């Protein structure tokens, strides 16, 4: 009997918090979500109210020992294969990049100053570009987030964010 009541309480509380989280209203759900490291409180508002109709592209360039800059290079992730309806490992990193860029763009609007360099999305992207090949004269590197539209031939290119230069 006690176990059944416990199950009922767990299910009810979990469901109630899930309902509240869909509308993002109130301090309670904001506080609960801050501590929800296991992502147990779901967000079910897929592609709405503002669907993602652009892509984030991560670019990088190097500052050489002589002080010049290389051109911008694109970090090219794995592209989804023909069988992606059943098997799509490429989406794992692709979604990660999109989420990270989204979060960094949100943080960049908070005027964090130099503290932005210590934020996880910034560090994640910096680490990501630091794994790209470098030349003998590469001295420092910076990354940028570029927004594009379009599937095969990206268009409407906008540079949204440029990082500081970081020593390699």
């Amino acid at each position, binding site marked *: *009997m006690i*176990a*059944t009541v416990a*199950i*009922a309480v*767990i*299910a009810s509380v*979990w*469901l109630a918090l*899930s*309902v509240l989280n*869909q509308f993002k209203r109130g301090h309670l759900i904001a506080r609960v979500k801050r501590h929800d*490291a*296991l*992502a*147990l409180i*779901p*967000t*079910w*508002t*897929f*592609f*709405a*109210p*503002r*669907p*993602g*109709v*652009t*892509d984030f592209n991560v670019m990088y360039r190097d500052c050489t020992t002589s002080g010049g800059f290389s051109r911008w290079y694109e970090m090219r992730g*794995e592209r989804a294969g023909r069988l*992606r*309806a*059943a*098997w*799509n*490992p*490429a*989406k*794992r*990193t*692709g*979604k*990660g*990049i*999109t*989420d*990270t860029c989204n*979060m960094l763009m949100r943080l960049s609007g908070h005027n964090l100053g130099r503290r932005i360099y210590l934020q*996880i*999305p910034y*560090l*994640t992207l910096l*680490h990501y570009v630091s*794994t790209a090949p470098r030349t003998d004269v590469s001295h420092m590197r910076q990354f940028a987030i570029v927004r*594009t*539209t*379009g*599937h*095969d031939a990206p268009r409407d290119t906008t540079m949204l964010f440029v990082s500081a230069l970081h020593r390699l």
Partner: protein
Amino acid sequence: VSLDTAAELTTTIVMVAVLVGAAEFLVSRAALTSDGFYSWHVLRTQHSWAVRGRLTGRAAQVFEQPGISLLLGAQMGAAVLAIAQSGPIFVWIAIALAGNLAMHVRNTYGLDGSDQMQSVVLSGLLLFHVAPDDTGRKIALGFIAAQAMLSYFAAGYAKLISSMWRDGSAVMGVLDTKSYGNAAATEILRRWPAVSKAACWSTLAFECLMPLLVLTGPTGCLVFIVAGLAFHAGIALTMGLNLFFWSFAATYPCLYLLSTWVG
């Protein structure tokens, strides 16, 4: 349909999602190394317990290579055994859920609604197996059904208040991206904008109204299930969101059970 049959079907279907999801991470394991996009050296800095303290070493053992690959392998093994209905199902569900939650703790980014639905379904199944009586088991499967209903209504409501979904440009916009795009579908929608509008409104109508069929009884629920499978198969084909099909289909046996209670 009995409680046990619904739980078995739900277990089998959600374990397909777990198996494919873990295998996808495993073949992308380079991303989980210290040089990869999901480097634990970077991601751990968001958890104070992973940077200093007694748990630092343990966390590194689990979340760095080869620990993380072993965890994914264990998840796959548990999924296979659960699908084969072999051994203690409760243990396989617990392992699958632990792996799922561990990936949420580790990665923070890159997981989606299908992963969240897996956590919900696996937790509901875990409650089903620990429940001492039929009332507890009904509550556990009812919880999964209620989350499924909520997911469709919440997704539908969020689209209803969105001008991009109402004016019919959302589907065209999403499909015209590299992330979830589809060149052939984009071309069709560009040539016939009315199709984009129809796709937006049929998605909206499906998510807002179709789940109500569950509440009309088993026949209505079967109509919803057929429409839901077609909906998620279409999304997998056009957008590559393959795991949503399995994660959400896993809730359908519980929705059917719910329909027999209310219908």
